């Protein structure tokens, strides 16, 4: 089976499902059941986090293939197996999901209606997301990828803001339409390769023209999830309307599903098409970085501003992925982690204010630095990290992407790097409006600083931001091997004669 002789990935994946079931079937009066549901959800998510840390500890970083693999017969007759495994690329995305779920649960204090259903949906979301990152069979991946929609649709639609129904339906329709193209591509690949094992599919050559079509299909599916411009229009609505924990999961984890899809499928399976599409993807990335940054600058609502900033940073990730350099891809991966943590922190800061009954329009806010110093410090830290200040996580990712892009094209590097400057502009505008400017709102001066629960959700994130920023190699050394293998395979696919040379050199 695997080095543990024990299906730990499945355990991590389905333990939240068990938690969701227990939470959903809790009896008793509403207030008591709500408290119990919160407790059970938190304990479940912390337990899986511990299991995740155990996996991380036993993970062998130098190995490029899948570890902790599991395989079991599943769909008879059509040659689909149940396969799970992690490599350096998916490990940290799983860790990110595991780490952010308990924080999202802590942030769900504002949920007052149908509390049990909410926590059940949140745990269900955790199961689906982890399963998606851990699946190493394409059909299994697709099942989880789609299933993520169900709890998220309900989270936005039931517990969201005033325009929640519009946002939920838009989110569902966009993603479902994207997935439609993916299933077409999956079925085509399935017929071509004869199996849906991702490892086998990655090493099967595909003709050039077919690659182009498949790439377009993947672009539709993963581009929507990653909110690549111009497929991003669902994002501000969904982020803006979802309740805070939902926004945290959407922005921090679910948006990574798209980037992960590009990295796991589009790049290794379709090297020729990816190389051909690189200029397009660079263009889309640069547009995202610059145009969406300007849109962010024009926002009057804190939550929407952060939402647009999130979309802008996804542009950086896309640029990094398509440089096909070790630096660029590692930068993109690192940026995925960093973005997940930073954006979660920023949305949680917004949630802190919402919990105190304040609307998040920038006009309404101001001068909070005086009476909420710890909150101000946290918001400042996450904002600086979002701008990419050296010493924070945001710097490493953006810097690596810029280096990678520099190797490929100076202008891409320059324009992509402009995002850091523009990011500084809109984040500072937000900081000034929230923390420093005088406000006409008299209630603001009476707001209390963070309470223990809010410390518990913001401190770990702040610590992670610093850890990633100061000692990045504890993360990068795990994805060195798979990324190097990916880049090498890519170069070999583009230059068949060089591949031969590499074989003989060994």
């Amino acid at each position, binding site marked *: 089976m695997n080095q543990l002789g024990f299906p730990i990935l499945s355990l991590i994946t389905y333990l939240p499902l068990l938690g969701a079931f227990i939470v*959903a079937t809790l009896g008793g009066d509403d207030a008591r059941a709500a408290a119990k549901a919160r407790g059970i959800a938190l304990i479940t998510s912390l337990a899986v986090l511990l299991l995740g840390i155990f996996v991380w500890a036993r993970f062998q970083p130098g190995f490029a293939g899948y570890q902790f693999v599991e395989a079991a017969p599943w769909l008879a007759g059509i040659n689909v197996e149940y396969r799970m495994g992690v490599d350096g690329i998916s490990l940290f995305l799983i860790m990110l999901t595991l780490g952010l779920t308990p924080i999202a649960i802590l942030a769900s204090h504002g949920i007052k209606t149908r509390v049990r259903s909410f926590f059940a949906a949140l745990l269900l979301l955790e199961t689906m997301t982890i399963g998606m990152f851990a699946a190493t069979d394409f059909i299994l991946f697709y099942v989880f990828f789609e299933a993520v*929609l169900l709890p998220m*649709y309900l989270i936005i639609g*039931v517990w969201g803001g005033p325009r929640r*129904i519009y946002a939920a*339906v838009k989110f569902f*329709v966009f993603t*479902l339409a994207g997935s439609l193209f993916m299933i077409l591509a999956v079925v*085509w690949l399935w017929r071509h390769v004869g199996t849906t094992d991702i490892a086998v599919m990655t090493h099967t050559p595909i003709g050039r023209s077919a690659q182009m079509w498949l790439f377009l299909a993947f672009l539709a599916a993963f581009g929507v999830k990653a909110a690549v411009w111009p497929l991003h229009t669902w994002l501000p609505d969904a982020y803006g309307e979802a309740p805070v924990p939902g926004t945290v999961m959407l922005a921090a984890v679910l948006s990574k599903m798209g980037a992960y899809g590009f990295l796991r499928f589009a790049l290794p399976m379709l090297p020729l098409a990816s190389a051909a599409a690189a200029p397009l993807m660079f263009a889309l990335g640069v547009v995202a970085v610059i145009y969406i940054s300007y849109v962010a600058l024009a926002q009057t609502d804190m939550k929407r501003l952060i939402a647009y900033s999130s979309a802008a940073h996804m542009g950086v990730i896309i640029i990094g992925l398509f440089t096909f350099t070790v630096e660029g891809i590692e930068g993109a991966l690192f940026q995925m982690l960093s973005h997940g943590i930073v954006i979660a922190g920023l949305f949680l800061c917004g949630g802190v204010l919402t919990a105190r009954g304040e609307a998040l329009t920038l006009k309404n806010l101001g001068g909070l630095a005086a009476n909420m110093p710890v909150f101000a410090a946290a918001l400042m830290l996450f904002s600086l990290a979002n701008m990419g200040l050296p010493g924070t996580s945001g710097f490493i990712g953006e810097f690596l992407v810029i280096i990678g892009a520099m190797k490929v094209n100076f202008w891409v590097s320059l324009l992509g790097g402009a995002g850091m400057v523009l990011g500084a502009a809109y984040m500072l505008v937000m900081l000034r409006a929230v923390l420093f400017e005088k406000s006409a709102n008299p209630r603001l001066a009476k707001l209390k600083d963070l309470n223990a629960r809010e410390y518990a959700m913001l401190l770990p994130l702040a610590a992670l931001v610093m850890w990633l920023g100061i000692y990045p190699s504890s993360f990068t050394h795990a994805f060195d091997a798979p990324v190097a293998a990916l880049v090498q395979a890519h170069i070999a696919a583009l230059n068949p004669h060089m591949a031969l040379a590499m074989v003989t050199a060994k």
Partner: protein
Amino acid sequence: MTPSPLLPALILGLGGMALLLIGVLAKANRAQGVTMGAILLLLIAAGLSLLAPDAVLFSGLLKTSLFTRYADTLIYLGAIAALILSVDFNQREGIARFEYPVLVLFAVLGMVVMVSAADMMTLYVGFELQSLAMYITAALARDNPRSAEAGLKYFVLGALASGLLVYGISLVYGFAGTTNFAALAAVLREGAGAGTVAGVVFVLVGLAFKISAAPFHMWTPDVYEGAPSSVTALFATAPKAAALALLLSVMAGPFGGLVAQWQLLIQILAIISMAWGALAAIGQSNIKRLLAYSSISHMGYALMGLATGTLAGVQSSLVYVAIYVVMSFGCFACVVAMRRNGRAVERISDLAGLAGEHPAYAFVFAVFMWAMAGIPPLSGFFAKLYVFATAFNAGLDALAIIGIVTSVISAFYYLRVIKVMYFDQGQPQFDRTAAGPGFVMAVGALVTIFFIILPSPLVAAAGAAAKALMG
């Protein structure tokens, strides 16, 4: 000890007559007791039919095999679920008549006969027996004009279909010289003239009426809407499974040599059904009409497997119809439970706010909607995956792509039902769900949700059934 393969049919027929006598002779209304008796008879017949061996009966008029047992099981399942749903519903609606379970038994007998038919004549006899029983059940609420209209409409269009079927059979007989399936298969393998092909087309049209494949679906929305919900639950399950199984057995059996001739027709039927079912459902405000259009599109997907003309295709159709039957009776259990102040309500907007008032009920309903939309991880996704995969593998790319597109379109109206239940404000104030619908809902939901864990037994059974059919 292995029971005789004829025993299930005998039990249904004789048991049905006995129950009829009890109902007639009893002084009080024995509808409840007769229904229970009918359920018991169906259970016994189902068990016996699973134990019965393969056989050819009455010198080649009937033939039982793994395939017929597979189809019979689905028929029994659908009929039992529908009868369980009817117990409480019919009583509350004031239509608790003992004739209903008896008619259901006769209809099931007809279905079992037509599925096991090995001759055009037995096929027709079984087909008519189930049809006649069904016409009456549609008009069960005879004081309700809509129900009476549904019965009449079903009868007129059904009679037309029967006419086409029997005309087709006579053409085939006239040109091929036999009505026996095995002999027909041998004759038609040599090739067929225009007359035979015309006969095949008529037979196909007659059967397409029964499974309500577009463009022969016109009766479906009206009958679904007009018939009492408990009866609609029956229409949506057992006869659909039976007619589809019959279509498979006729097309792959006696007409198996003419794949090239009928393959395109089946494809066209599949495409029109999928597309029309998806588009026409969008504007519906009545949940039963919506489910009627949904069943039309589901039949399109099920036909997609047959359209490949291969063993894998028949297998995927069988998998599809099994999953469909479970989703369908679960869904109708939810519809049957829609009652306010002692009256059945049927508008989708009546469901507004259900999730707040009855979370479990709303969740189960949502599960069926999502499953029908084909969203993983629910069973409906795998049903679609199997047919799409076999269509792709058979080189029918265009068909599969159309199927995927229409399934996304249809996702929107299923989603609307969920939206109404979960997001819209309202107070459905539904009456307490009775035990019967609650039980059927729970069973359906469990199977639909947990199918993902153990899909292989069903798929293997369908594979064995397809093999038994096609050899």
